[in-house]
């Protein structure tokens, strides 16, 4: 139990914060209901994938500045392929785009390993490359998405044997998120590969000496990041029905949520749950700010202050804990 608390204390705290925020939301807007929760889940979707993509590489001791550009590229690719195509064609587009994300992510990793240029620089360069590629695919927002894909994240899931009142609180978007992340994360976490990711993030030298194939693991980390970013790109196309070549604000948001979620930027520590909860917290804060009709210029100040305050608070606790 003490092991659990020591390791998961931060995530538990975040969960508590999320619940407090939900209560606050209900107080601000008593009519806040299941539909609104569905909206939250849909808003979270692209951020959550971006953050998951970032989390994997950060745990492995790296950083990926190309996450948002990768999302833009995969999103425009999917949207332009589905433009005017049949519904069934999308069944091919989805795996194609995911494979593309995986391959481009692996290219990121390969370049880092081969050129020995620091990851932050390689992914910064790739940010420009991917952005350029996105502009070549679509020079202005456009394209289309298959109807079934769009339907995949709107509405709720009818769960057998559960009353409607509960059903309506299970938006499809949330389920899609959970399923996609679990399919990737749980087997990873349990495998030797997952351990290797943590190992190279914690100490590359020690990992190498423990027989971990450091280079290969690093490439896989970036490939997984690319894959998750491709999920994020698809999520963008699914929710907007188009692809936009200019990346959204997902890069900085992903780094912020990773840190808020208790994943150390040095690598080797943390998990996926924390950052995902952090995304919910950040999105719900935005909802509350809108519901409260706060001056929009002040919201930037508030969001920045929350980020700094929470991280400072975390740093403060660890300092206290160390003494």
């Amino acid at each position: 139990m003490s092991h659990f608390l020591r390791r998961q204390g931060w995530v538990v705290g975040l969960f508590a914060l999320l619940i407090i925020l939900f209560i606050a939301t209900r107080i601000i807007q008593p009519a806040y209901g299941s539909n609104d929760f569905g909206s939250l889940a849909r808003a979270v979707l692209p951020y959550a994938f971006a953050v998951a993509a970032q989390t994997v590489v950060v745990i492995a001791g790296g950083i990926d500045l190309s996450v948002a550009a990768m999302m833009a590229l995969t999103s425009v690719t999917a949207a332009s392929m589905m433009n005017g195509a049949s519904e069934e064609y999308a069944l091919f587009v989805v795996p194609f785009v995911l494979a593309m994300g995986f391959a481009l992510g692996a290219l990121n990793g390969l370049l880092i390993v081969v050129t020995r240029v620091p990851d932050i620089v390689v992914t910064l360069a790739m940010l420009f490359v991917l952005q350029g590629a996105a502009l070549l695919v679509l020079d202005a927002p456009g394209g289309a998405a298959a109807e079934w894909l769009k339907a995949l994240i709107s509405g709720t899931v009818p769960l057998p044997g559960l009353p409607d009142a509960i059903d309506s609180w299970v938006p499809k978007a949330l389920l899609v998120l959970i399923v996609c992340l679990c399919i990737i994360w749980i087997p990873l976490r349990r495998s030797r590969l997952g351990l290797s990711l943590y190992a190279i993030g914690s100490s590359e030298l020690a990992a190498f000496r423990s027989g971990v194939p450091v280079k290969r693991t690093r490439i896989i980390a970036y490939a997984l990041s690319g894959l998750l970013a491709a999920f994020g790109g698809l999520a963008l196309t699914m929710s907007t029905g188009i692809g936009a070549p200019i990346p959204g604000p997902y890069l900085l948001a992903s780094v912020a949520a990773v840190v808020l979620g208790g994943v150390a930027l040095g690598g080797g520590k943390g998990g996926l749950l924390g950052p995902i909860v952090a995304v919910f917290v950040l999105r719900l804060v935005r909802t509350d700010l809108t519901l409260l009709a706060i001056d929009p210029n002040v919201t930037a100040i508030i969001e920045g202050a929350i980020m700094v305050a929470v991280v400072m608070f975390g740093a403060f606790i660890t300092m206290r804990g160390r003494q």
Partner: protein
Amino acid sequence: MTTSPLLDATGVAKNYGAVAALRNASLSVLPGEVHALMGANGAGKSTLVKILTGAIPANAGRILIRGEARDIRSPAAARRAGLLPVYQEPSLIPDLDVLSNLRLTGTPVEPFRAWVRELGIADLDLRDTARDIPLAVLRVLDLARALAVEPDVLLLDEMTAALPANLAEKVLEVVRRQGDSGRAVIFISHRFVEISALCDRATVLRDGETVGVVDIVPGVEEKIVELMLGARIVKTHVAARSAAQKAAPAPARPRIAVQNLRVGTKLSDVSFDLADGEVAGVVALEGQGQDELFAALAGSIRPSGGTIEVDGAPVKFSHPIDAIRAGIAYVPGDRSEALAMQRSVRENIALPFSAALRTWGPINMRKERATVLSAIERLQIDTRAQGEVQRLSGGNQQKVTIARWIAADARTILCFDPTRGIDVGTKQEIYKLLRELAGNGKSVLFYTSELEEVQRVCDRVIVIFGGRLVDIFPVEEADEPALMRAAYGLPRGAKADIGILADPTAHAYDAPEATP
């Protein structure tokens, strides 16, 4: 004896740019043998171990395993070939718990547990994160992890250097049994007691070259030293310090007076004085509170009770700068804790000069150069690779950490195991230096894990056990058996058998019943 060697390396060379770490090293190990690898600092021992286990590639050389040429490119490949190292630095992943570390290397858990118990660590929780485990225990876990997969050749790089006597002994017992069971062990150590108690043969390296292979027989030490040092022969055995060498009688007011010092649960009620012109030794087994004592005196941690007086005035340190201002400098045992590895020798030595806000301005380069050079000369630091401290060998790095405080002219130096992993020649230099400092009226507090050092250097010895100060010996009475007993918390005068180190002639050994 015509058994074919288990491992046979010849002509191994390794260059780091212009510096040749290894030129022409060879090493041949027979089955069932504990083989010592010896050499002065910078001779290339660690480099050879790393090459043999695939951690770094060699520039030249041929490695045969059981007579077959093998090209070992990674630690994983070495592991498959039956070669398992325990490197000088712990190689457990700091942020993973022990169990995950085992899973990562595919180590079976039960044998590991058995070995851990065997090696004298009773209460290990496999869910503890490696980062939270003390260094000495980590090294033992590293060894247990290697033993658990039953390697053909075990390579131990200064395995015992950071270990307290009780753990070191268990390790030696286990290693000897490895040899008896037909496997081979390559054992690196700078401690002759261990070598003579344990090893069958020794390969001696000098300047990256194998200069001799000798059988370990009584009295071979002189020969090894000769081989190791070549032209640079140093008298190894400094006689125990005579009473005449002792500094003038201590003045009425001590330099540092510690009263009832308490640090959490680790250290309680410790009181002692340190006089000017005195070297006071500290002896303790691993984790008895000596780390906390030094950290508290150095201002690294805040004591939870008791007082520290410097020159009669009570002080409260909240940062090492406070201790430094009071003239107290701390040389940690772990070099990587004290050095900016990518910076030059000069910048490392000059570091304390820039510490205070008012010294952030332009540096008087000429003055600094003179000060640094004189410190380098005084400690005879090999400055061939002085552009980056990380390119110096371990011993020379250690000297840099001390040189810093010589240059800064600190009045009191707290040395925590400064001779850890250092060759005999350098050790002598450090002993001499500490005595010189005392002679100049400085005071030194000197923790050592090698009991034989005590009589060579100290005026008095403080023994700590279980966080308490159990005894203060005058140097004349501080022979190894007496210290060992005290370190185990046994009252002075009591007799007890405490293992092979207390009786280095005892070669016959009864294997314990449980072998995992």
